[in-house]
């Protein structure tokens, strides 16, 4: 395996959920286009952040990568091996290398199992007998995630939300994975606990060299955790790039609007740029033609309605910073006083 092969290579990834309807014979009458043609790579040890608003397909993407769902089209390659439709047997060795951390630390741990059994679960399933026994490994893992190793006999309800999320992290680490898909791992936690878990994940990522696909809606947390960030809108990646390029020089109008909408806990004398989008995200059942963002975009023209913009390197972008827009933004983000952009009255 050469160094240039990315750990994860996703190309044209698509997931459409059929909608059944009609009487008396139920047939497919439409499809929710949850994810529509994603292309991205994740390098070894790197963290890729996926941000977007609800319904943009970020969680579906996570489930497709981990093969919890069958994609409608496209390919997923792990270390150069196509795993898009790999069967149970072919997947078995790879499953242990791709793990997942879930959003809800209350729903993702079996309340009837002790913490020891939960964390040892992946080893049991894969028939792995670590040196020194599973219990020793469980204690080690508990120590890594900052829990008392003596607590392996306790049940999930004896732990607080933040501690439970640590248990979820320990379970994901049990098989020494190469890639962890973390789906909103901190959004259910209180602010002070969020920071603890983010720090833990960052430590794990650095010390164990694990690659992350970090799915979240909180732009500040994604920026803090991920070296590269992809912004999704209605099932498509609208912009992807290195953290600094994307946050300091967003080229897609949606990225710019999203960043300007984040409330920041500062009271600057110079107000930040304010872009207020009108209306809501359209339905993924019947997404707008051409560019999917055009119904809320203040720059949209005829061309945007007819021609879907490809995800490409816009003029002036650094390598690897791709934008899917016909009219990319040109101005770097600077706090601008009195600047207001009012999108045209959308329907």
């Amino acid at each position, binding site marked *: 395996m050469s160094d240039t092969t990315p750990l994860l290579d996703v190309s044209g990834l698509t997931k459409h959920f059929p909608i059944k309807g009609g009487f008396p014979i139920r047939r497919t009458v439409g499809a929710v286009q949850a994810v529509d043609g994603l292309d991205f790579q994740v390098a070894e040890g790197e963290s890729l952040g996926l941000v977007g608003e609800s319904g943009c397909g970020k969680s579906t993407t996570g489930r497709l990568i981990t093969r919890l769902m069958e994609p409608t089209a496209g390919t997923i390659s792990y270390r150069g091996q196509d795993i898009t439709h790999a069967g149970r047997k072919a997947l078995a060795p790879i499953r242990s290398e791709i793990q997942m951390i879930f959003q809800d630390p209350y729903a993702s741990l079996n309340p009837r199992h002790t913490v020891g059994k939960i964390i040892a679960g992946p080893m049991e399933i894969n028939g792995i007998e670590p040196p020194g026994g599973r219990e020793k490994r469980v204690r080690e893992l508990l120590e890594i995630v900052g829990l008392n190793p003596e607590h392996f006999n306790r049940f999930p309800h004896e732990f607080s939300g933040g501690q439970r999320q640590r248990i979820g992290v320990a379970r994901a680490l049990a098989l020494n994975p190469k890639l962890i898909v973390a789906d909103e791992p901190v959004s259910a936690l209180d602010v*002070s606990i*969020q920071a603890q878990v983010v720090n833990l994940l960052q430590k794990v990522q650095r010390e164990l060299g694990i690659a992350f696909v970090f799915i979240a*809606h909180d732009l500040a947390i994604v920026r803090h955790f991920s070296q590269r960030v992809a912004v999704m809108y209605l099932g498509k990646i609208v912009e992807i790039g290195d953290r600094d390029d994307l946050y300091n020089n967003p080229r897609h109008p949606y990225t710019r609007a*999203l960043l300007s*909408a984040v*409330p*920041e*806990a500062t009271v600057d004398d110079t107000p930040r740029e*304010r872009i*207020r989008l009108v209306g809501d995200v359209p339905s993924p059942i019947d997404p707008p033609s051409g560019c999917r963002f055009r119904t809320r975009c203040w720059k949209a023209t005829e061309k945007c309605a007819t021609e879907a913009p490809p995800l490409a390197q816009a003029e002036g972008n650094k390598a690897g910073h791709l934008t899917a827009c016909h009219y990319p933004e040109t101005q770097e983000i600077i706090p601008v006083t009195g600047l207001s952009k009012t999108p045209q009255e959308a329907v």
Partner: protein
Amino acid sequence: MTSTDSQPFLSIKDLKVHFSTEDGTVKAVDGLSFDLARGRTLGIVGESGSGKSVTNLTILGLHNPDTTTIEGSIELDGDELNGASDRTLEKLRGNKMAMIFQDALASLSPYHTIGTQIGEVYRKHTGASKKAARERAIEMLRRVGIPQPDRRVDNYPHEFSGGMRQRAMIAMALVCDPKLLIADEPTTALDVTVQAQIMDLLKDLQQEFGTSIIFITHDLGVIADIADDVLVMYGGRCVERGPKEEVLRSPQHPYTWGLLGSMPSLDGPVDVPLNPIPGSPPSLLNPPTGCRFHPRCAFASEVEGNRCATERPLLQIEDGRGNACHLSDGQRREFLADLAASKAI
């Protein structure tokens, strides 16, 4: 306006709300005092279980009287609400004070049209006819920015998107032109772009109607955007209070430092770890003695004689600004300077 402007519109004094449960008494709010002037917005920040929602349900009289004991005084525009009869409270709710909730879908009846639900409040308090109520509902929907309000008024909640439902809730809350609006995490369930729309709307409406707003949230960013004054709650008590600019620029309480240190920003350093508060929020069944924050406080050892663990720090307020902490002003300045120097806040 019935009272003079020098008098606060809402005045809460030493409010205590205790629930009796099977496991013992939960001290959800334990000695909280604050004032709110007309047309101002007070942001209440705190984590889950800090008592911020309970405080506001108590103001509205929406607690369960069988299991709740309330002490202290809640004065709204000169009227005492603690101990007021159900009839009095019913007259005030929706009329003089109103509330919007986090989950708009759960707070709207799925069986009735948006227009009926908005009109119902109006008819109850003004005795208006059905026709007049419908007109009023359309007018309110227009005010909160719902397109085609004359058609949308006959829609059911499920036909609205999340942001539109929250707008409808705001329309319902403001239909009788209340003087006090309590907003309990109204934007938490919304996406950021929609959240920004709703906060702009609330600010515009406040300008127009002169409403006093209590805005409850866990997000200091939202506070920075919408509030005039901030009250930070921890374990059922106020730990810090003051004008927004001062609390965010020079926070005084170690808990507020911790909250600010826990939040990554859009332009801060990325390669340093965040500065979280260790431990978890306290159980209010058996809260810590002394200062409720002391088991998680990095500075408790700086106070002589273990006072943080034994003695409750009193909230000392001067000109609307103050904190409840045993640290001396000198220590506070020193620690805050250290934290700022290490970019921990």
